[in-house]
């Protein structure tokens, strides 16, 4: 099964970000979209999530699918606790009891059980982003959109949260669309990698990596090859 987008167009005033754009995203896999900043990656996610309306486009297998979204920033509600922030997206879906159980489960999975009654202003940036990851997984979505969610974190935190994310995904393989400009992130995570370039944006190349994400090692020859190819394409 695929999520398929065809004939996608989007203009902002005089700027054409997408024109007759098409992409096919396999379900229950991690699809990475990589490109320089300003090439329309975030716009693509916002079009998929319905935050922006598309000017034109055919979206196959996307209607009535539920979506969760991890943004560059945590985007938590300051006035709700860690627990409250996760329950916030579950209120219309589950009964109070079930909501509580699910919230607790995901807070534990991202290792924040001691902080469930903390407010976001009392948390570090890394902890807040982990709450955002927990919120996205607690929400029963078919599709998970991720917009450079680790961009603002330092190396060690990034590794931790990446591991949390992969652990969650391993037990619950949702369709992930992951946007980044970090080549190593792309090679570590993607089952499919699409390289986006130009304005209006075009897919200039794509790669497939069969290997399980947990068994990947960046010093492996095959991955180094892909990495170098992507660098070459992005620099050309």
């Amino acid at each position, binding site marked *: 099964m695929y999520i398929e987008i065809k004939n996608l167009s989007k203009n902002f005033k005089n700027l054409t970000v997408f024109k007759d754009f098409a992409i096919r995203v396999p379900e229950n896999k991690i699809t990475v979209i990589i490109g320089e900043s300003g090439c329309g990656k975030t716009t693509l996610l916002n079009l998929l999530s319905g935050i922006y309306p598309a000017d034109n486009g055919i979206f196959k297998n996307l209607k009535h699918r539920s979506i969760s979204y991890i*943004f560059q920033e945590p*985007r938590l*509600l300051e006035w709700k606790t860690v627990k409250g922030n996760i329950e916030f997206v579950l209120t219309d879906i589950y009964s109070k009891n079930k909501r509580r159980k699910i919230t607790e489960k995901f807070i534990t999975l991202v290792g924040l059980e001691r902080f469930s009654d903390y407010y976001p202003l009392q948390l570090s940036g890394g902890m807040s982003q982990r709450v955002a990851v927990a919120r996205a997984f607690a929400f029963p979505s078919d599709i998970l*959109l991720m917009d450079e969610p680790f961009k603002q974190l330092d190396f060690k935190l990034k590794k931790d949260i990446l591991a949390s994310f992969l652990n969650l995904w391993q037990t619950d393989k949702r369709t992930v669309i992951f946007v980044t400009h970090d080549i190593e992130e792309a090679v570590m995570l993607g089952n499919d990698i699409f390289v986006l370039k130009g304005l209006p944006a075009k897919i200039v190349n794509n790669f497939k990596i069969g290997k399980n994400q947990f068994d990947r090692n960046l010093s492996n020859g095959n991955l180094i090859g892909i990495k170098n190819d992507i660098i070459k394409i992005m620099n050309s």
Partner: protein
Amino acid sequence: MDKINKKKDYLILLAAISILLIIWKIVSLMIDSEIILPSPESTFIGIIEIARQDDFLSAVFHSITRGLIGFVISFLSGIVLGIVSGFSNILYKLMEPVLVIIKSIPLISIILISLIWFNSENVPIFASFLVSFPIVYTNITEGVKNIDKKILEMAKSYKITKTRVLIEIYIPAILPFIIASAVSSVGIGWKAVIAAEVLSNPLKAIGTDMQLSKIYLETDKVLAWTIVAILISYLSELLIKIIGKKIVKWKY
């Protein structure tokens, strides 16, 4: 650490008040006229004297009630109109000239005009309403306009209903603005109440008693009433700050 700091703060406050009292005492000795500037101790006696008058509490009570009514009216209308203006550019533009007029009209004109329009009981209420309303309204409108668009996008992507966005995002986001406007409008509203009472002379009012003391050249009592008014203003501001901290608990 916090406790030590608080203690230090109190000491500084105490020192500031003592210095003021000393300066006051020296100046009153130099002027040497109880009518022009009574000494601190005769003012203090004045406070005790007015506090022992039969109608002291009822004057205080009635003035506070007027202040409260004006505060509540300006608060409710400011919040409602502020929220609607935050969403509707048309109302925002319509309100702009109204606000400019209210903000720049001299307080004394407001009082004189309302003396013509209302009975003496309601003049202070109207005056405090007109000075507080722009503060509340402007704060709330800013609050609505400054809501983080990114949070709204998040809510949209998780398909949160409009009602819940209003109750769980908009309202809590403007709460700090509501508290801030309460803190800054309560003192100004109170000043307007007293000023209006001095001119409109309601039967029971701090302002009326002040005016009478002035007529009888009881300067010590004028000052005594002034100190009572300052204390009430300070305490109500303190109360709002304490309530505010309880309500906006995520920031502390």
